[in-house]
């Protein structure tokens, strides 16, 4: 971890350059405090640098540059995703809330407010959450871009879930400007026994920094399904910081297709006994500009909890996939059941997968397993299929979907899973392009 003072100076200089033309928003005391605190932390640690151990596989340059690199807006040629799923839609265009396109924030079992409105209120529940989980998540590893988010975000939604919600809240991120540099910060607080599903879809912006803080109280259940947009040139760095109470459940699935650079960090703390955390991702990448990074850090700090990480990547035409996943089991977290698998299927020799799976275990009565593999299409399976008359291209599609199956199975809702499958089939069909 030792870093030369010269290196730190370089990072701090970059940070000042990044901040030079940006104003820290002001509001009520709690918001000002949280932002000032984040800004202080950011200035102290500096923005990420390619020499940082945590950024060894993913070059942060384009994420920390003062201006967002241009990203052409992609013309979609597909039917809308989950068209038949009833949801409460909240639309952001290049990171700016679009009231006309959004539904009313009225849904039984939860209360939704915007950061832009709440930041001026002196008393609000979110003061105990905004930036709080993000700060905790900086304990073991520095996450400067998350601090950037807490310091600078001017919008996002705060959702207080008090009951079992009947339909998902759907955050739709549209991308319409090829120079947009968007920051959104959402906080979700689930009371005891509450349940909700959060959907997130879309490319969001030319460059997108998004943070999600989720506080899941005892016996509450949080479900999350996300599809990151197809825009080839977009960049995104996202962070999800979650804290789980006893017997609570957190399940998150992400599909990523295209985009030049995506880094999805997920930091979960299991703080109550018997809690469950599942994080899964399917990523399909095409072309040498494609770079996708899943970075996960799960801390077991309670008894008899289960965590599961399932990440699958299909890479072709020189695409790069990265996985950094850690399970930390603290001394008293007995009976921990931790599972982690990260696999890539390389459809050609030019594509690459870089993985760093880690276990750090201080309790003695635990079951933890991790595995990471990189492979090509299984030749025996391929011949078997072709010998039955299935052409090579179609056989490849079948085997790709089979490879992704374990990750897709993490999506509980069948309709949502079908939508994801259709998107993948679309990607496979575009093989020739």
């Amino acid at each position: 971890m030792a870093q030369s003072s010269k290196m730190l100076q370089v990072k701090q200089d970059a940070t000042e350059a990044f901040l030079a033309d940006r104003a820290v928003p002001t509001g009520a005391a709690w918001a000002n405090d949280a932002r000032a605190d984040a800004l202080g932390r950011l200035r102290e640690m500096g923005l990420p640098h390619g020499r940082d151990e945590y950024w060894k596989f993913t070059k942060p340059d384009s994420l920390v540059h003062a201006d967002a690199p241009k990203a052409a807006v992609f013309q979609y040629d597909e039917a809308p995703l989950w068209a038949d799923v009833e949801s409460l839609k909240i639309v952001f265009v290049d990171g700016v809330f679009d009231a006309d396109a959004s539904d009313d924030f009225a849904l039984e079992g939860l209360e939704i407010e915007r950061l832009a409105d709440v930041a001026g209120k002196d008393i609000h529940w979110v003061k105990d959450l905004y930036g709080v989980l993000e700060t905790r998540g900086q304990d073991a590893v520095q996450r400067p871009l998350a601090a950037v988010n807490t310091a600078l975000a001017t919008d996002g939604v705060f959702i207080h879930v008090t009951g079992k919600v009947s339909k998902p809240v759907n955050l739709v991120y549209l991308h319409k400007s090829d120079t947009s540099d968007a920051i959104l910060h959402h906080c979700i607080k689930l009371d005891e026994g509450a349940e909700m599903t959060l959907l997130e879809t879309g490319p969001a912006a030319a460059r997108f920094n998004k943070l999600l803080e989720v506080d899941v109280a005892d016996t509450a259940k949080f479900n999350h399904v996300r599809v990151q947009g197809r825009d080839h040139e977009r960049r995104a760095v996202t962070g999800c910081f979650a804290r789980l109470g006893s017997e609570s459940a957190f399940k998150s699935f992400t599909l990523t297709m295209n985009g030049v650079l995506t880094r999805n960090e997920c930091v979960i703390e299991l703080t109550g006994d018997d809690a469950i955390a599942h994080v899964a991702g399917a990523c399909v990448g095409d072309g040498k500009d494609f770079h996708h990074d899943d970075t996960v850090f799960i801390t077991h700090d309670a008894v008899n909890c289960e965590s599961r990480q399932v990440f699958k990547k299909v890479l072709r035409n020189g695409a790069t996939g990265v996985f950094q996943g850690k399970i930390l089991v603290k001394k008293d977290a007995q009976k921990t059941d931790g599972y982690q698998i990260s696999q890539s299927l390389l459809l050609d020799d030019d594509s690459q997968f870089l993985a760093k799976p880690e276990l750090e275990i201080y309790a003695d009565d635990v079951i933890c397993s991790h595995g990471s593999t990189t492979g090509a299409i299984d030749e025996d399976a391929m011949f078997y299929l072709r010998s039955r008359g299935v052409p090579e291209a179609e056989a490849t599609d079948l085997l790709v979907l089979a490879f992704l199956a374990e990750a897709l199975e993490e999506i509980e809702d069948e309709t949502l899973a079908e939508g994801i499958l259709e998107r993948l089939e679309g990607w496979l069909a575009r093989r020739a392009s």
Partner: protein
Amino acid sequence: MLWEHNKMLEIKDLHVKLEEEDKQILKGVNLTVEPGKVHAIMGPNGSGKSTLSYVLSGKGGYEVTGGSASLDGDELLDMEAEERAAAGLFLAFQYPVEIPGVGNMTFLRTAVNAQRKARGEEEMSAGEFLKVIRAKAKTLKIDADMLKRPVNVGFSGGEKKRNEILQMAMLEPKMCILDETDSGLDVDAMKLVSEGVNALRDEGRGFLVITHYQRLLDHIKPDVVHIMADGRIVKTGGPELALEVENNGYADILAEVA
């Protein structure tokens, strides 16, 4: 069924070596299977029987250094594996492959419709397919669960072989090659599999049954029996040749042709 030639499968002086190694495996195989006939190939381990079946069905890793093979008059060796299948060739694998994540039913429907599409025929609807496969699965004692599970994953040896026969029944090939379909089968399973094969016997369909044992040939009665050794057919005869092997082993025959 109509067929254009009285040679369903014709193999002429086939020479095959491994692509990666300088190792000749087939050293001039000659064999003709007529429509409606069952030919058996017996022979010691390593004589090249599986290699012959793989080369005919288009598996990679082999290099044909001489000779030819045709299916119902069409040159086989120039076709892709899937084209050979659509043309009517079927290989029941000695070691059926497990494909995690692909449901058995999805696999079969994809195969049936891919072949139909290749032949310019109409694809089978989901409903029709279901009806047909249920009936055929039932006679092979393949239950709904086996149809739903991933291809061959967790199947017993016998289940895998019955699954091969189910695929054959669904695909209705012109020429069936069975590579040691009897290995790993108990008496009951052998009976089921043989019944499945016999149900497909038809005046237009050819069979090439590769086996070590007479016992399979008690159930699937061959018209012609070939003995293969060291990459060649060394002897051809009637069903009595299989009995001779059963009683005396290969030693006598090999000594006789040496």
